[in-house]
């Protein structure tokens, strides 16, 4: 029997250094709320090097104003990791990551309404032999649910400080800060017996970890226990691998048990739950029975076979109506003010290339992307709201069956749906998808959903394709819907294809908690919204600025002789020459070099196509009135006098815009979210390749049919 080593009081974190706490807990137990309450706005958000797992570090202050570092680790149900997020939590706690110092102490938050399952993680964490403070959150909700949770009793059972808390309204925070400032935190009374059939393996593994992996004896035992339940497939970048000797011992035991039919992992889980059951029966007293909870009542409607769809439809309609209405005013404001800013710079600076670089290149280019920021913010806000209320999980529950048809799961639904407005928040929201293959597939197909930047292109092409007077509104709307449908079918088709080819793999066990509905913490949602927007601006900002300047340069050089019109200037610029160079490639799609310039400029943002066409065809038009541009397009001719924008070309061009990857911001975000250039390059190639092939089919088939 592996006896736990004798526990002595832990040494206080050395006085010279700021103590480091790791904050851990199950998903949905209020961990983020507590982290925000403790650290306020003193947070740093980034990625763990090598993996796309969010690293959040904040500074809290003790009662005496001493700084305390708090690392907010990704939420998990167990230290036996199943996803990269969970692997990071495990590895930081075990000191396996060289980029993060092993925390001195652990702050473990549990949901008082759901103590048994939450204590499973606590039980694993107590193995680590570090001082632990247990935060018992949601005490008010536990009381409402008819549970009498005896905090003092739990404190006595475990021998560590247990702080009753309601993170949402700040209750218990003072007591928590006091506990965190204590220099003499006791170690847990945590003598649980490892089940007999497994104990020899634990001892052997622990000994090997001490000898070959240079682990401290306390950590070694915890790690040995974890190795037995860990699904070792999750190895993430930045984590120190096991020594060959230890890995060999582990394999040896696993093979022996498999041959004997010993269910080692199950036995281990069972024995932990037995220990937890004994504690929970002492700590949690049920004060009679209570009827169905409010969450049960809401779910009876929200996941109802009929009403469920209705609610989902309403929520999504509300989402899109608010994106397009609420975002309009700030988008216009940004549009006008970037123009004003450019004018102001123009009035202050002497005429010249530097001035044009700043006004047309930097301000104009970045402005065309920043215009979408209000939409992105609103989407982030809604996604945060859906997450924090608990509706996100319901949407995934309802949609899982449909999404599984193409090999994805319900959690891909909201990211894909958000991509109808803008792929960037959609792609950043894929972090809630645990399975890395499903997540990658969702990222790869999300930009196929027609985003709002494509809308002006569709509108212009439909206007050119179907003249106002003779064609019914129905035909126009129908054509527009067809484009959206095409993108959607494309997204699901490619998801299906990728899940069967590139990113195959046995479907993992798809389990998901449906957390109780909660009132959203608006402060937390807003904080998260600004964090995500900040990440987007920081990560994409430099790329956007760089490409904007390159695009400006391509259009501004070489200089046309003095007195040339903007149209002439563009025609003989590098961009114009690139359009010419591109023409042989896009001619089979029905596009000439002038459209080629539009395709190139669309890399800033797709809607820039419209203003580029305005310059190319020398037509003044505004957002409200595209008629001059439409007429100019209709008047455009090939050198041999054929009409350029035939209905067939308009259709071919629209199909191209449905599928082509033409958005530098998206590429920058995909690079960040997939941690390298491989996937964004692949995505750009497959999307643009598909766009070319489909436009080719549309144009050539139409041509043969005589359109």
């Amino acid at each position, binding site marked *: 029997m592996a006896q736990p080593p004798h526990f002595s009081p832990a040494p206080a974190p050395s006085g010279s250094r700021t103590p480091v706490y790791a904050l851990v807990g199950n998903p949905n137990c209020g961990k983020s709320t507590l982290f925000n309450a403790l650290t306020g706005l003193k947070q740093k958000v980034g990625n763990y090097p090598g993996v796309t797992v969010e690293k959040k570090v904040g500074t809290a202050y003790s009662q005496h104003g001493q700084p305390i570092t708090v690392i907010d680790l990704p939420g998990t149900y167990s230290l036996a990791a199943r996803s990269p997020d969970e692997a990071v939590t495990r590895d930081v706690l075990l000191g396996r990551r060289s980029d993060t110092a092993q925390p001195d102490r652990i702050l473990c938050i549990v949901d008082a309404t*759901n103590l048994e*399952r939450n204590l499973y993680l606590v039980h694993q964490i107590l193995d680590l032999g570090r001082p632990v403070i247990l935060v018992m959150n949601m005490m008010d909700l536990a009381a409402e649910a008819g549970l009498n949770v005896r905090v003092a009793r739990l404190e006595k059972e475990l021998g560590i400080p247990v702080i009753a808390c309601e993170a949402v309204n700040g209750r218990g925070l003072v007591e928590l800060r006091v506990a965190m400032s204590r220099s003499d935190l006791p170690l847990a009374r945590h003598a649980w017996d490892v089940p007999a059939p497994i104990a020899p393996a634990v001892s052997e593994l622990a000994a090997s970890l001490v000898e070959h992996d240079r682990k401290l004896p306390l950590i070694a035992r915890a790690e040995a226990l974890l190795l037995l339940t860990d*699904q070792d497939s999750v190895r993430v970048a930045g984590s120190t691998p096991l020594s060959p000797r230890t890995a060999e011992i582990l394999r040896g035991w696993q093979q022996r048990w498999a041959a004997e039919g010993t269910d080692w992992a*199950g036995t281990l889980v069972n024995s932990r739950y037995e220990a937890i059951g004994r504690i929970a029966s002492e700590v949690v007293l049920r004060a009679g029975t209570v009827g169905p909870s409010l969450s049960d009542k809401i*779910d009876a409607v929200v996941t109802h076979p009929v009403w469920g769809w209705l609610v989902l439809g309403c929520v999504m309609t509300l989402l899109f109506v608010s994106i397009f209405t609420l975002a309009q005013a700030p988008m216009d404001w940004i549009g006008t003010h970037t123009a004003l800013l450019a004018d102001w710079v123009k009035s202050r600076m002497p005429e010249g290339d530097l001035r044009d670089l700043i006004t047309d290149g930097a301000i104009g280019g970045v402005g065309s992307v920043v215009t979408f920021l209000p939409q992105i913010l609103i989407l982030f806000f809604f996604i945060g709201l859906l997450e924090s209320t608990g509706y996100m999980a319901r949407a995934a529950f309802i949609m899982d*069956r449909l999404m599984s048809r193409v090999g994805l799961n319900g959690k891909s639904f909201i990211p894909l749906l958000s991509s109808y407005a803008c792929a960037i928040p959609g792609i950043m929201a894929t972090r809630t998808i645990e399975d890395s293959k499903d997540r990658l597939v969702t990222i790869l197909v999300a930009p196929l959903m027609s985003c709002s930047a494509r809308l002006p292109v569709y509108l212009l092409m439909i206007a050119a394709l179907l003249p106002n007077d003779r064609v019914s509104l129905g035909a126009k709307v129908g054509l527009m819907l067809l484009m959206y449908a095409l993108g959607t079918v494309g997204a699901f088709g490619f998801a299906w294809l990728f899940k069967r080819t590139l990113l195959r793999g046995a479907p993992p066990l798809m*389990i998901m908690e449906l957390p109780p509905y909660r009132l959203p913490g608006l402060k937390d949602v807003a904080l998260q919204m600004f964090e995500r927007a900040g990440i987007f601006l920081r990560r994409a900002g430099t790329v956007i600025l760089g490409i904007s300047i390159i695009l400006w340069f391509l259009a501004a050089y070489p200089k046309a002789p003095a007195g040339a019109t903007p149209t002439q200037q563009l025609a003989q610029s590098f961009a114009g020459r690139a359009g010419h160079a591109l023409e042989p490639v896009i001619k089979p799609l029905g596009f000439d070099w002038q459209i080629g310039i539009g395709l190139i400029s669309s890399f800033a943002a797709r809607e820039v196509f419209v203003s580029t066409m305005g310059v190319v065809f020398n037509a003044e038009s505004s957002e409200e009135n595209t008629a001059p541009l439409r007429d100019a397009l209709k008047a455009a001719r090939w050198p041999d006098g054929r009409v350029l924008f035939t209905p067939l070309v308009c259709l071919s061009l629209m199909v191209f815009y449905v599928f082509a990857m033409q958005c530098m911001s998206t590429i920058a975000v995909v690079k960040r979210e997939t941690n390298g250039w491989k996937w964004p390059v692949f995505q750009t190639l497959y999307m643009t390749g598909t766009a070319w092939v489909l436009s080719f089919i549309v144009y050539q088939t139409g041509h043969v049919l005589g359109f």
Partner: protein
Amino acid sequence: MAATLLKLSDLAVGASATVREFPAQDPAFIRLREMGLLTGTRITLVRTAPLGDPLEIKVRGYHLTLRKIDAAHVLVEPVS
């Protein structure tokens, strides 16, 4: 009395049951057990999703969803 075992996926909506058997040593199912679904644990099938899949069960006071294809590997004994 010999207990009649059902697949969890065949349990009627609203019915309660006791978990009896798990697929032996399938690592994917360890997480299900870590979340408290153990041999001997009482569960209730709350509902199915609008399209019939996944299932929503209540276990140890919280709600968990899992797909039928996975639930078919868990054998339960209905309790009246």
